[in-house]
């Protein structure tokens, strides 16, 4: 049922009287108050323009935020004067350390600055005539099919938490909007890649669905962020680099490079966010670790699934390069986990015996 405001504004005598006073030229000007501490709020670098970090000064700076927001559950922007009676929008994520990362404002600006448009920026004509054999092309379309699903669910994950976050964390909400756009573009770009020039989508993957569901249904935002930004996007970033490194044409080089760049912003936020979260609440390390155990188990399913590993074998020219690619990817992932304060996850992770199995087969 739609929300109904408690007052009938159109019929309220007090409201009507005030409007009539304003119309007659009697201004109250009660709203005309300066709030916050004065600061420059100017671009610190002319070429970069006016950034969020430039205006996050004085009383408007996020370092003034309390760890738990108790004073504002309304739509009021951080730093505005709050009149009594503001409606609560029911925000459920109200703890700064559950969302914050110092790098977030910069990543938001970077996401906009490093934007690209698949429609025109990808040199699609480089795929005409097809610069590799049919099996290679089918393998790329299969990998693209997985990336489409990943992009769509990443959009959903960011969207499902953005509206639950307190308005005081607007930088993080902005970043999640940028993540939604970045993820939508991944989905768009790889759908276009799969279908270009009479192409087709591949088969959907049940293990990938299980992985994405385990991320989408995370109980808390820190768990969702660790699972999506740190775990999933470490793999997406690596796939982008692999796509570019094995490309036979400029279109695939471009797509892979852009995928890797965009995915790395998710990863960078994930590392900084989890680290900030664990600095403030170190006792959460066990909870996050347990959640990542489940997510990494699902990731084993994806990396070992024929619809993932077989196309990779075809585009990489054999099994050994794929084993090497997985080993490098997961080594980087484990180092990021350590940088985020999650300790050395190698011993406990389901990914480690999976890697050993591959190394045995590759040697």
């Amino acid at each position, binding site marked *: 049922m739609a929300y109904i405001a408690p007052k009938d504004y159109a019929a309220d005598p007090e409201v009507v009287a005030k409007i009539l006073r304003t119309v007659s030229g009697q201004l109250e000007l009660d709203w005309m108050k300066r709030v916050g501490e004065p600061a420059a709020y100017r671009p610190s670098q002319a070429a970069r323009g006016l950034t969020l970090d430039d205006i996050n000064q004085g009383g408007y700076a996020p370092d003034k935020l309390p760890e738990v927001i108790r004073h504002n559950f309304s739509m009021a922007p951080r730093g505005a004067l709050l009149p009594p009676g503001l409606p609560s929008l029911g925000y459920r994520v109200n703890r700064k350390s559950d969302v914050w990362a110092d790098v977030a404002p*910069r990543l938001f600006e970077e996401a906009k600055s490093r*934007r690209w448009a698949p429609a025109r920026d990808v040199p699609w004509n480089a795929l005409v005539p097809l610069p590799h054999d049919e099996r290679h092309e089918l393998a790329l379309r299969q990998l693209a099919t997985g990336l489409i699903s990943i992009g769509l669910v990443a959009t959903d994950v960011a969207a499902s938490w953005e509206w639950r976050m307190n308005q005081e964390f607007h930088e993080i909400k902005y970043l999640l909007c940028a993540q939604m756009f970045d993820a939508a573009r991944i989905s768009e770009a790889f759908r276009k890649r799969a279908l270009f020039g009479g192409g087709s989508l591949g088969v959907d993957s049940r293990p990938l669905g299980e992985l994405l569901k385990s991320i989408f249904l995370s109980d808390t935002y820190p768990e969702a962020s660790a699972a999506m930004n740190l775990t999933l996007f470490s793999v997406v970033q690596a796939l982008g680099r692999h796509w570019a490194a094995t490309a*036979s044409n400029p279109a695939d080089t471009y797509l892979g*490079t852009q995928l890797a760049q965009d995915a*790395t912003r998710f990863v960078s936020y994930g590392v900084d966010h989890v680290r900030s979260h664990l600095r403030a609440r170190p006792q959460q390390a066990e909870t996050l670790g347990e959640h990542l155990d489940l997510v990494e188990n699902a990731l084993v399913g994806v990396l070992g699934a024929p619809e993932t590993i077989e196309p990779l074998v075809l585009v990489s020219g054999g099994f050994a390069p794929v084993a090497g690619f997985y080993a490098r990817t997961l080594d980087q992932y484990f*180092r990021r986990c350590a940088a985020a304060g999650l300790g050395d996850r190698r011993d406990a992770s389901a990914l480690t015996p999976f890697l050993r199995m591959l190394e045995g087969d590759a040697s």
Partner: protein
Amino acid sequence: MAVRFPSLEFFQALKQRTVDDKARFEKLGYCDTAFGVRIGAELYGVAFEVYECTRVWRAADAGELDFVLEAPPELWREMVAAILRNKGADAAHTLNTLTHVGDRMKLVAQDAEGEDKYYRFMASLQEFFDQAHNLQLEIA
């Protein structure tokens, strides 16, 4: 006059290209990193801010850099020759391919975040090296 590769003058000339071909770098977006290029025993520092390369120098301390790209001089020469031949790196000689396939070029970083700056700004860094095709080069 030809610029010798490798040399500090080579990196100074590339730095100037980020000003001369400003629109190309602006299209790629913000790029904020200070990284190293190790060619054999020589370490060059390259700093980017906003869209431009703002500083190149002979670096002594890799610790002040987000990451370092390390390769023997022969591989760097091969990469630059490919850039001159193709007016930009071919797929086999992009920084990504060289650091990804078989680790012919090493990506060395103090921490995971320094390493990730390489991936965040990869297209700008590739464009920086691709600009070598506009230079008159003497590959030593």
